[in-house]
């Protein structure tokens, strides 16, 4: 899931300066889970913006705002409001905001900062365990990614800044190499494998931006949840 945080209201109002009629777009997927762009947050934002003298001409929560066709279809249902808005405020990730920007003509103001791809062990907790490095090797480390979960991406073992299982960068944060060691205590043979593993410098050519994946889809342009609804 893409983890987001809402921008500070002050920052948002500065970005919205000169724009009076606003259409708010949330996201029924990640931003709803992150409590940055679900129904509740859109209502809160509506109140804040109205207090600041804005007119909220409408709002929408596409199932998944980064899926351009879903977003476009959702906006069609709000045709009249969309026609008269000065700008869109998007409470979703940067992919959602750009997907929207690609199908409307008015300015699109991002209401959130996009932080990382996250796991969510429980509500209100998001952690970065994957950095989309293009070549997954977690099986080599007991299901734990040292590339992402170490600030220095140390793949051969810990740096000298770790102590008592914690990280030099953040004393609250576990050293990923201590996590791997603890995992190995439950996984016979893992530590021996880790100790022998030598890794060539990473091939960054696949991380050339902007990355893309284009293929012939089995289903056309709609999300799985959309199909389930028929």
């Amino acid at each position, binding site marked *: 899931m893409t983890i987001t945080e809402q921008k500070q209201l002050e920052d948002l109002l500065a970005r919205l300066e000169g724009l009076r009629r606003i259409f708010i777009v949330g996201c029924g997927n990640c931003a709803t889970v992150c409590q940055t762009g679900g129904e509740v947050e859109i209502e809160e934002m509506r109140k804040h913006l109205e207090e600041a003298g804005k007119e909220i001409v409408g709002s929408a929560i596409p199932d998944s705002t980064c899926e351009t066709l879903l977003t476009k279809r959702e906006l069609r249902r709000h045709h009249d409001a969309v026609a008269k808005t000065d700008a869109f405020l998007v409470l979703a990730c940067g992919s959602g905001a750009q997907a929207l920007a690609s199908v409307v003509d008015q300015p699109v103001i991002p209401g959130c900062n996009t932080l990382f791809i996250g796991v969510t062990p429980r509500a209100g907790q998001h952690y970065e365990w994957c950095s989309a490095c293009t070549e997954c090797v977690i099986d080599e480390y007991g299901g734990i990614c040292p590339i992402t979960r170490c600030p220095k991406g140390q793949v051969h073992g810990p*740096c000298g800044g770790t102590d008592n299982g914690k990280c030099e*960068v953040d004393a609250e944060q576990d050293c990923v190499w201590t996590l791997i060691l603890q995992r190995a205590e439950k996984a016979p043979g893992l530590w021996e494998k880790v100790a022998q593993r030598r890794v060539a410098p990473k091939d960054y050519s696949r991380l050339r931006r902007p990355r893309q994946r284009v293929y012939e889809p089995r289903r056309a342009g709609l999300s799985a949840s959309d199909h389930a609804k028929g």
Partner: protein
Amino acid sequence: MGMREALQSGRFIVTAEVAPPKGIHFEHVLEEADMVRGRVTGINVTDLQSAVTRASSLGLCIRLLEAGHHPILQMVCRDRNRLSLQSELLTAAAFGVTDVLALTGDYVTLGDDKSAMPVFDLDSVQLIEAAKTLEAGHDLAGNELEGAPPSFCMGCVVNPGVEPLGPQIMKLRKKIDAGAEFIQTQAVYDPARFEYFMEQAGDLGVPVLAGIVVLKSAGMAKFMNKNVAGVTVPSALIERMQNTQDKKQETTQITIELIDALRPMCQGVHIMPLGWMHVVPPVLDALGL
């Protein structure tokens, strides 16, 4: 004599350390180096230590070499990608700086410009590998070098004081496998802890130089105990620094005792005086080094 010859000689080795200035005036550091002229095998030059922007390690290494000293180039992986690291190795060798210490590097946010981009394209194991690859006449991508290849004596570091120790030793062994020929450790203040480390490490096959950070004050000791991973200054040493009337004398005496206690367990010491190079000659005199 370079590090390799000194290491092979089997005698007890002493290295020292200086830091490039945050500025362009090297005179003071060159004076520090002169205090140990002829007394040490090599002088490490730190590479933007503590992630603080400074003049470069290689720049000062070249100045030291010109002044007749033997520099050991420290290289961290934090600030440069593999192209730049290999370039630095080649440039160093071209100037005759061929003893190199590979380190990971403190994280950027520990330094004085927290907004900088951390690189870590290679890690310290791969940096040693990169040097070995250049020695074989090509770069990491397999492209051939022009002319005769460089030759390096690569060193590496370990922090003997951290827990858990197992992963530290595991990585240390990978550095040695990659081609490291000597080890300089993080600061040691507790000989018993160092002995434990050496036991756990077993036969490493390369010389270990125990790290000695000259203890300048009780305040510094407390700071390190709180902020430097794996470094524990025993309370007895802190009390001695607190109670002394003559700080320089006490610092010298503590350093002498520490090296004397560590001497039977290692092949040398790496003294990091943090600007107090003047205590090093009396320490070496007292120890007959």
